[in-house]
């Protein structure tokens, strides 16, 4: 099974042009400076931005193809996304954040809470459920954000700069945690970062973008050799 992304996407004067395919099980880190198109790429996969040409195909299902007028709404894509800082819903408790994806699909609150138990235990969140996001540490918020993204059992997990904005100590801890999370997730794993250490410590494969184009695509060990 593969995730095929072969598309062009224009946003103002910026143009992203990629032809990449991803294999289930590999951890892919996308690197590049600000404005290189890393986040735009993730947005396209999640369906938050439509492509202008080409297509996006996940396990033989076309998610987006401009010429055939196929566009699967973000609500219908099996994609989970985690942004920098977690971006937890501030007006909701930790539990409400975690079960949001189930509640949005009209699952009853009690059933949703029950379904969330394995994730709550896996991420050690049982003590934090009634807290609000502002009462969490950076690392805790990140864990809640991942649990929230995984509750809908997505096939693709997208992590957009998940470790920026954390201090060095927390970063070390979160990096180790991330490795664990990524190892425990069986689907497609794509992580965006501009930090080389983050990339090398987690990636099987590294893709480097610049000005909307792929300038490097290879294994992490090859990338290390290039440095």
């Amino acid at each position, binding site marked *: 099974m593969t995730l095929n992304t072969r598309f062009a996407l224009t946003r103002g004067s910026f143009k992203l042009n990629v032809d990449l395919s991803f294999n289930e099980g590999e951890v892919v880190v996308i690197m590049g400076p600000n404005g290189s198109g890393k986040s735009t790429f993730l*947005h396209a996969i*999640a*369906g*938050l931005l439509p492509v202008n040409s080409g297509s996006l195909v996940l396990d033989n299902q076309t998610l987006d193809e401009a010429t055939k007028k196929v566009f699967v709404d*973000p*609500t*219908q*894509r099996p*994609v*989970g*996304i985690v*942004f920098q800082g977690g*971006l937890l*819903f*501030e*007006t*909701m408790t930790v539990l409400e954040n975690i079960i*949001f*994806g189930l*509640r*949005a*699909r009209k699952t009853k609150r009690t059933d949703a809470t029950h379904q969330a138990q394995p994730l709550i235990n896996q991420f050690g969140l049982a003590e934090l459920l009634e807290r609000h996001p502002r009462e969490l540490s950076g690392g805790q918020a990140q864990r809640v954000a991942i649990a*929230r*993204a995984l*509750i*809908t059992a997505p096939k693709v997990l997208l992590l957009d700069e998940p470790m920026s904005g954390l201090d060095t100590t927390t970063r070390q801890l979160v990096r180790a945690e991330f490795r664990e999370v990524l190892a425990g997730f069986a689907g497609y794993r794509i992580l965006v970062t501009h930090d080389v250490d983050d990339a090398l410590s987690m990636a099987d494969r590294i893709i480097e973008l610049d000005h909307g184009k792929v300038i490097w695509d290879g294994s992490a060990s090859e990338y290390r050799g290039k440095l």
Partner: protein
Amino acid sequence: MRQSPRHRQRLPWPISAIALFAVAFILSPFIGLLWRTPWSKFTDIVLEQEIRDALWLSLKTSLMTAILCVIFGVPLAWLLARVNFPGRRFIRALMTLSMVLPPVVGGIALLYTFGRRGLIGQYLDSWFGIRLPFTTAAVVMAQCFVAMPFLVLSVEAGLRQLDTRFEDVARTLGGSRWYVFRQVTLPSIKPSLIAGLVLAWARALGEFGATITFAGNLPGTTQTMPLATYAALDSNPESALILSLVMVAVAFSILIALRERWLGRADQGLAL
């Protein structure tokens, strides 16, 4: 160069003196009002039929206006903040214009649009038999015209401050647009919404110029508190004083409520 804390705390006296003068200027009319208020007749006057009618009409129309402003203003604010459509800048300029426009001009404009011979009013009359001027509906329209921008601009500022990625995440989690708006967007902009709502309500409560021009000054139907106060000034100054005081009290409580609960968090976004 960094200033030492001690240096910063010293009051520069010429600036302080001028500032103090400004405070005295704003404060003294309130003292004058309190000083001349005939306290002994307070309850008698407040309980007079005409005053009670005006008070009730003001509350009724301003609350109606506040509700209408939310119903129509929130979607408009959302469009202005989130969708890049042609004419967006024009609409925002229009909002600001009706905020700074003398309300009496708004009243004249409403009269020549919705009046019996107005652009739209003539058809309302001949097709549906609806005549708006000098009705309570006209009071609400005049109030909406002047108050709506306060809500729209406040909510728009709140929406602009909100990171759209919150809504993006909610969408990828399966939330329909309406679900995301209700569960994520609306709770996040609550401080700006409440601030805008209260400002719009306060503006509607104090509306005078557009109301008297478009809706007239009919006791019980279109004579709101500000109109009754102005009318009383000639015939019964004591009533005017007491009505003024009631309005000061209402406005003051609005501000206190705002400051304590919402304005502190929302004021950065409120370009007022």
